[in-house]
């Protein structure tokens, strides 16, 4: 058995051309090993893009492994369907192997590189960011009001926090998040040598991202969560989350336009566009993350990387807090608690923005890049002419 073990490990280091594979980390070598087995089997080709992309290769080097790991949506289908999954001695667990490398790529490509370590301490990162965000706004609140609870001010946010201060603070943090993620993902993009993105490839990738195509299981019944049964709820809760987030973001953007372009400062009526968008988005962002958390808690333990659960749940918690506090501000905007509620909401949002480049949010960005590469790659002819029985 020991010898077999060694052989199976070696299967992952199949070096026909270059010995670059010697520099693989253990997690990467495991993906290489598993892909070598899958490439000889291919039963899971119909589930997602990972297996068709795999068939374009006969060896798996670092860049291939990073690409495939990020292309994997961790849907779990190929674990439950695998004839070589544990307890089989081949111990194939594609989603787990991919998840581990994925986590590693977020740190590896992170910018500035020193902050890449935050991914590995994601629970702590979220906690500190949250504490910092809350402290900041509570202090600001105390600075303007000298007391936390007070007379209702008719929903006038800027009586608490001047608009320009908010715009500056959030603009800076959000700008940094965009920059950091942008640099990270472009480093990833360059390393996986994507080739030329044509219009149709971009369109297809966009479609696959926005529809979360690869959470449909390849047959439309969805992915696996607790067991080998399929469910569409992970996809749906992702949609609630993503589009809820977008609606909230749009609400803020519209309000900013109202403020600067139309000279209409908040508060806005309940039927105004910013409040409507914010409310719809807030509800979406409440249902989505709550659902994802529920699924996360019931997830089959063999799917994915247990070490990343704190990161998953930290991000989910921040999203939930964002919507919950946002809706609380709306509900309490005519009460004396408005100041505290607003400070809490802004603190949470600040923490969310600050951790965007160093937490679970990154998965969407890297996944989108990998999907674009796949959309490009599948349009190129497969250079291998393999035949079998």
């Amino acid at each position, binding site marked *: 058995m020991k010898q*077999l073990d060694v*052989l*199976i490990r*070696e*299967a992952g*280091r*199949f*070096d*026909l051309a270059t010995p670059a594979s010697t520099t693989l980390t253990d997690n990467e070598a495991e993906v290489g090993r598993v892909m*070598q*087995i899958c*490439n*000889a*089997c*291919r*039963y*899971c*080709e*119909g*589930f997602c893009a990972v297996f*068709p992309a795999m*068939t374009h290769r*006969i060896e798996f080097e670092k860049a291939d492994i990073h690409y495939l790991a990020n292309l994997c949506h961790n849907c779990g*289908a*190929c674990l*439950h*369907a*695998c*004839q*070589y999954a544990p*307890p*089989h*001695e*081949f111990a194939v667990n594609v989603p787990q192997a991919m998840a581990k490398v994925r986590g590693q790529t977020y740190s590896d490509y992170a910018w500035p590189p020193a902050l890449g370590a935050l991914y590995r301490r994601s629970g702590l990162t979220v906690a500190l960011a949250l504490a910092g965000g809350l402290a900041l706004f509570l202090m600001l609140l105390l600075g303007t009001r000298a007391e936390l609870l007070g007379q209702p001010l008719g929903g006038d946010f800027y009586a608490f926090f001047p608009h320009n201060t908010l715009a500056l603070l959030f603009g800076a943090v959000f700008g940094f998040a965009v920059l950091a993620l942008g640099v990270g993902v472009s480093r990833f993009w360059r390393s996986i040598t994507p080739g030329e993105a044509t219009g149709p490839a971009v369109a297809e990738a966009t479609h696959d991202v926005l529809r979360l195509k690869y959470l449909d299981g*390849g*047959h439309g*019944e969805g992915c696996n969560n607790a067991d*080998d*049964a399929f469910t569409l709820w992970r996809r749906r809760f992702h949609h609630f989350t993503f589009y809820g987030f977008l609606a909230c973001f749009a609400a803020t953007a519209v309000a900013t336009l109202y403020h600067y372009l139309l000279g209409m400062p908040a508060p806005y009526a309940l039927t105004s566009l910013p409040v409507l968008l914010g409310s719809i988005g807030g509800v979406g962002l409440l249902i989505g993350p709550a659902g994802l958390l529920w699924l996360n808690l019931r997830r089959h333990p063999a799917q994915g990387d247990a070490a990343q659960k704190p990161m998953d749940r930290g991000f989910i918690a921040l999203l939930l807090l964002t919507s919950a506090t946002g809706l609380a501000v709306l509900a309490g905007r005519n009460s004396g608690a408005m100041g505290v509620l607003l400070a809490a909401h802004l603190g949470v949002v600040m923490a969310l923005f600050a951790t965007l480049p160093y937490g679970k949010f990154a998965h969407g960005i890297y996944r989108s890049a990998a999907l674009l590469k796949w959309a490009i790659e599948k349009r190129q002819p*497969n*250079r*291998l*002419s*393999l*035949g*079998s*029985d």
Partner: protein
Amino acid sequence: MFDVVVIGGGNAALCAALMARETGASVLLLEAAPRAWRGGNSQHTRNLRCMHDAPQDVLVEAYPEEEYWQDLLRVTGGLTDEALARLVIQASSHCRDWMRRHGVHFQPSLSGALHTARTNAFFMGGGKALVNAYYRSAERLGVQIRYDAAVDALELEDGRFVAVRLGEERIPARACVLAAGGFESNREWLREAWGQNDNGEWPADNFLIRGTRFNQGTLLKFMIDAGADTVGEPSQSHCVAIDARAPLYDGGICTRVDCVSLGIVLNRHAERFYDEGEDFWPKRYAIWGRLVARQPGQIGYSIIDAKAIGRFMPPVFPGVKADTLPELARRLGLDEAAFVRTVADYNAACRVGRFNHTVLDDCHTTGLTPAKTHWARPLDTPPFYGYALRPGITFTYLGLKVDAHAAVHFGGRPSPNLFVAGEMMAGNVLGQGYLAGIGMSIGTAFGRIAGTHAAQAARQGTHHEAA
């Protein structure tokens, strides 16, 4: 008391259990394996051979009944029962709607198996996904399932099934379906069936089992001893050449080595022993197990050079690699001088024309015995690779004789309430040879028939009891 007890936990058993339950019977399914290993050889399958007169979702063009039948007649050399075979073929044209209702998904032919796009419907995710879907459906419908339940024997009364014996336990039921696979996992039985060769070796001791470890043939043996009518020879089994490093059980599909026709194959004495380029690999795949089984030590070595890389399905284990032929011989543990001589003779005999692996090309050897009749190119481009090969048993052919109702027979008389399906009776239709995907067609057709008739027999049994 259960109406129907189904013994086995693979495709045939599940089809039988689902059909019996759908007709209203109470059903108990007994699977020898623990849950993690459930599904027998069925969990290693990938497709089902389907008759169709026009393009059908994942299937292109047409594969009419007559063509299917002629294919079967050819591979079995006539060792088939036409009526039962046609029943399977016809059932294969419409069983997929039922399969889908129970959660099975299909997909077009896998890359690397495009030659089956017309004849075979592939299971999305393979046989384990299919088995999972059937188990979910069975649980939902209220089939009682027990794992770790290896049945030892049956209680029979004059050709009539009475009860199942499972250790100390006795489980009576009104009818029974046997779907416990062949005896390919039983190494003792294989040893006995293959016997001893002229060199005093027991060839089967060196065989690997491609599928489950749970098909011990306990019930097959029990039924034969109980006087049930049989079909097929115990020495017959489907046997392919697989990577010698494959695990003893459950290596499945990925351990095959697909580069035979691109190079040469040597035995332990570094001699060639068969025409590697006789025909397309898919057509010759299944003879190499037997060829290797006849070689000393039951081992072969497939040798290729760098020209072959990227032309065959990637193997699961890396080949033994060397920059020179003598080094490869040493690494493979073969006699260096003999190895180099064999390759040199082969290289000198190659008449290279226009190499084309997709047709029976004109690259061949002259004056060499055995000849290599196609795709013969000298092994001259390093690095060189070698793969050790062993016979891998897919399934055995020995089974129980049935009629169109899947009834077990004793002395030519059908049992009123004992039925059999799947590999345990596949020999009625496939007496020898193989046609990709027909195992699942037989198991699905006869599993469903057996389930239906067992439920019916149980109902009649109840009438008898009431009367």
